[in-house]
């Protein structure tokens, strides 16, 4: 084992946990009127940790410790960068939104950080219990965040729904884990892989399917996607953004590690591959088709994010290295593209108290920057060059075609062209309609920064994807070793 200092390795997690506690304490101690500093405090600590993690990705020691319980490889660090970037963008874009909340708002940032911590644990988990603890930390934080607008019936309803359905999915996941423990006597991924062996028994089949179902819930894979639209619609918009982006990415981090390390090693991989292909195809088709008639921007983005999960699944089917690289690349650009769209949605919903697409009418005139950012983000999600989504989809689908699964790539391409239809319907409303009677809503401050930043990243990576692609390759290769 390499010599390393555990504090340098665990620094980001420790800082995030500490900050979460500190923010909670500040909220309790500082009077209601003086809490404006909490947002900058959160933002700056996230920036600090993000910079450290980026440094760590390139130069830090890579190791695993506690007998492989917690991995600190480039794969995990890559995802930590992603979560931290997503959290930072959510914090930056939610300032005005959170200012409007009731006096309990100090918990918002604290909970956001604890959810981030849970995700970071999930990315690093080398065994199932650690993974589960991280997952629950994230999920429980989200239960509260989703129901944050306690006076709003839809938000409360969403919170309850998420609690019940999330609880059920956790139970299924736990059942799978306990079956695996019963079969192999271990929760460590590496050990499970060797002990589970090449034979597919009914018990191991059941265990794997339960694990997949539990994680499939988090990434809103069809047929476990039904929760997503309602909860995305009801939750406060910044929370929806974080839920759609980061929690999905975290579940993907776990899925890649668990699926590629353990499930792929056993005879399950043959049936599992078929199962995943069918689910991915269904996810892409249903997500995109049901998105077409939506009239609420958050529901539209919810279905679009279901479809995006389908694209990402394609990369898992392709497997290492090219497929995993595709997933990592796409997950990162998905953060920026989606964050841009959600920042605009947050802005509009905060200024106009509406999430209906028709209230985006004439946004081009009322807030040119927001309209341009929304267009760029949606087109990146649709995979139109020169935006980053195109390169991402290219990586994913060329990887899977290389493995001989042409049909799924074909479905993916056709469905992403179908998705252009509903993305353009939003663009149409923004550019074509005059939006008479709606207020001018210029963008300022941190929100403006978020919008410009996400759009620039989306454009720059689309035109010159090499640096991010190299990071993704390094991360994908670290997983195989």
């Amino acid at each position, binding site marked *: 084992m390499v010599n390393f200092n555990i504090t340098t390795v665990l620094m980001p997690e420790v800082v995030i946990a500490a900050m979460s506690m500190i923010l909670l304490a500040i909220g309790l101690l500082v009077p209601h009127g003086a809490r404006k500093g909490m947002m900058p405090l959160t933002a700056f600590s996230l920036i600090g940790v993000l910079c450290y993690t980026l440094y760590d990705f390139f130069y830090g020691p890579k190791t695993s410790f506690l007998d492989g319980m917690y991995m600190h490889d480039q794969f995990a660090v890559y995802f930590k960068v992603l979560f931290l970037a997503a959290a930072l963008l959510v914090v930056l874009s939610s300032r005005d939104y959170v200012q409007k909340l009731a006096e309990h708002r100090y918990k918002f940032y604290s909970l956001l950080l604890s959810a981030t911590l849970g995700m970071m644990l999930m990315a690093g988990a080398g065994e199932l219990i650690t993974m589960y603890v991280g997952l629950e930390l994230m999920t429980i934080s989200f239960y509260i965040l989703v129901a944050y607008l306690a006076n709003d019936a839809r938000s409360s309803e969403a919170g309850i729904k998420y609690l019940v359905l999330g609880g059920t999915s956790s139970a299924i996941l736990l059942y799978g884990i306990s079956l695996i423990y019963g079969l192999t006597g271990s929760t460590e991924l590496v050990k499970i892989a060797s002990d589970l062996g090449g034979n597919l028994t009914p018990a191991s089949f059941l265990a794997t399917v339960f694990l997949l179902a539990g994680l499939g819930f988090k990434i809103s894979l069809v047929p476990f996607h039904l929760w997503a639209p309602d909860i995305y619609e009801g939750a406060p918009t910044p929370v929806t953004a974080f839920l759609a982006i980061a929690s999905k990415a975290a579940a993907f981090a776990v899925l890649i590690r668990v699926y590629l390390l353990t499930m792929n090693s056993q005879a399950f991989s043959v049936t599992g591959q078929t199962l995943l292909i069918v689910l991915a195809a269904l996810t892409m088709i249903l997500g995109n088709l049901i998105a077409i008639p939506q009239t609420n921007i958050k529901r539209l983005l919810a279905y679009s994010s279901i479809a995006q999960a389908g694209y990402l699944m394609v990369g898992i089917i392709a497997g290492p290295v090219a497929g995993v690289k595709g997933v990592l690349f796409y997950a990162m650009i998905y953060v920026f593209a989606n964050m841009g769209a959600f920042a605009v949605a947050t802005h509009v919903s905060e200024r106009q108290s509406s999430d209906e697409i028709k209230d985006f009418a004439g946004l*081009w005139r009322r807030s040119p920057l927001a309209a341009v950012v929304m*267009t760029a983000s949606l*087109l990146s999600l649709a995979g*139109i*060059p*020169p935006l980053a989504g*195109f*390169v991402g989809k*290219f*990586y994913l*689908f*060329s990887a899977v*075609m*290389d493995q001989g699964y*042409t049909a799924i*790539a*074909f479905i993916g*391409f*056709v469905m*992403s*062209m179908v998705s*252009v*239809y509903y993305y*353009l319907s939003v*663009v*149409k409303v923004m*550019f*074509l309609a005059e939006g008479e009677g709606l207020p001018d809503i210029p963008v300022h401050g941190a929100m403006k920064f978020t919008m410009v930043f996400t759009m620039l990243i989306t454009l720059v990576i689309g035109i*010159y*994807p*090499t640096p991010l*692609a*190299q990071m993704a*390759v390094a991360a994908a290769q670290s997983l195989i070793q």
Partner: protein
Amino acid sequence: MSALPTVSSLSMLLPFTLLAPLVAMLLIVFLPKEESKTIKLVAAMGMFVSLALSLYAFFAYDRVLGGMQFTLTIPWIPDLGVNLAFGVDGLSLPMLLLTNLIGFSAIYASWNMEKRAKEYFILLLILISGVMGTFIARDLFIFFLFYEIVVIPIYIMVIIWGSTKRVTKEYAGMKLTIYLLIGSAFLLVGMIALYLAAAANGHPTFMFDELAARQSLYSPAFQKIAFALMLFGFGSLISMFPFHSWSPDGYAGAPTAVSMIHAGVLKKIGGYGLIRLGVFVLPIGAKYWAPLIAVLAIGNVLYAAFIALAQKDLKYVVGYSSVSHMGYVLIAIAALNPTAATGAVAMMFAHGVMAALFFAMIGFIYEKTHTRNISELGGLAHQVPRLATGFMIAGLASLGLPGTVNFIAEFTIFMGAIKVLRVQTVLGIAGIIFTAVYILRTIANVLFGPRRSEWDHLTDIRGPELVPLVLLGSVIFIGGLFPNILLGMINSGVTSSGLAKVLETVSQAKMGGLF
């Protein structure tokens, strides 16, 4: 490339040609939206630089040497093997020139645009650069990237500045977009399959010449499937029957400049792609599907011409006539011989200039009379003689009158195609009669006949409005009277690029063929 002391030093020529409109676009972004005169001037200057540079490239190109010239290659995405590679040869240079001729004219055809002028010219310049990029790219990935860039500006331009006639502009815009995007989905699958097959020996590549050099890696079965995918993609772009129905609706809904660029150059990307990618890289696939292309092409020529006979709206007449003319390009591609291939490229150039002029003139007529209905117009030659001249030139070029560049192109195509596709060519030549019928009838009804007093208030085109007429009109006649300027260039492209050799091999192969 081999040593080219005179031209290789000009490796930045093409990037500058591409960037000039983009620089103009960035300038416009920072101009206040009230100053529409300045915006138009900046746009025109950007396009003028591009036009001047591409004219220089056209005449500085060394035809004896042939091959790709003015090349620039920068490794772009190493892990995919993508190179930012630019370069032009005798096949792409006419298309580049065409893009800039039409782009420059399109700015002037929109000179009276006052509604949201700033956004209009921003999108128009993005559109023109996107089209230009496809013709100078030597890398399939970059080619595709530029191709898809153009789709979204077109959509936005159609829905905002378009016109609602037989169908609403929203419908027209969406139909156009969906057709092209579904086509490009097929294209993408074909492209990735080709890329993966070519990567079999280690180094992945997207370069056109490398892909063509690795033909031994593509099995005949693979070539047939990959070509079919590309045929669908490029075919729907060049409005191949029966995937043509977006084209008349789209042109009718679009604003003048978009119709000009779309009919003039954008759909030519389909023909260019079929030659550059289909015939060059997948000759066996091309040979296999050629009979089908030839039959569908007859569908284009005759069916679209028949429908054009029955149209009442000027833009629909030209829209269907452009579908009809694309049939000639497809016949030429299906003939798979050097003469016909030369004709195909010449036809794309000739039709582009003609269609752009036609749409520009229709745009002016509509702007002044607020109608495009043939029955409501008449005798316009009395009031607007210059506009009528432009309309006449475009119409006569459209029916292939000798003396226009279109005649040269059609003649070359029939010369090449008659050797291999007798029946289809004869049917295609018959199509000229129908073209003559609907074009002459349209000209007669719109321009001639008794003077109508309701049009007495019209002012003739003047000043900047004359630019499309003068520029495109003179290209039509110069190309028609001195055909060697154009044909010599294309011929050098066909022979030096190896296309002639590929075609010779393919035409001698007795195997294959769908029928």
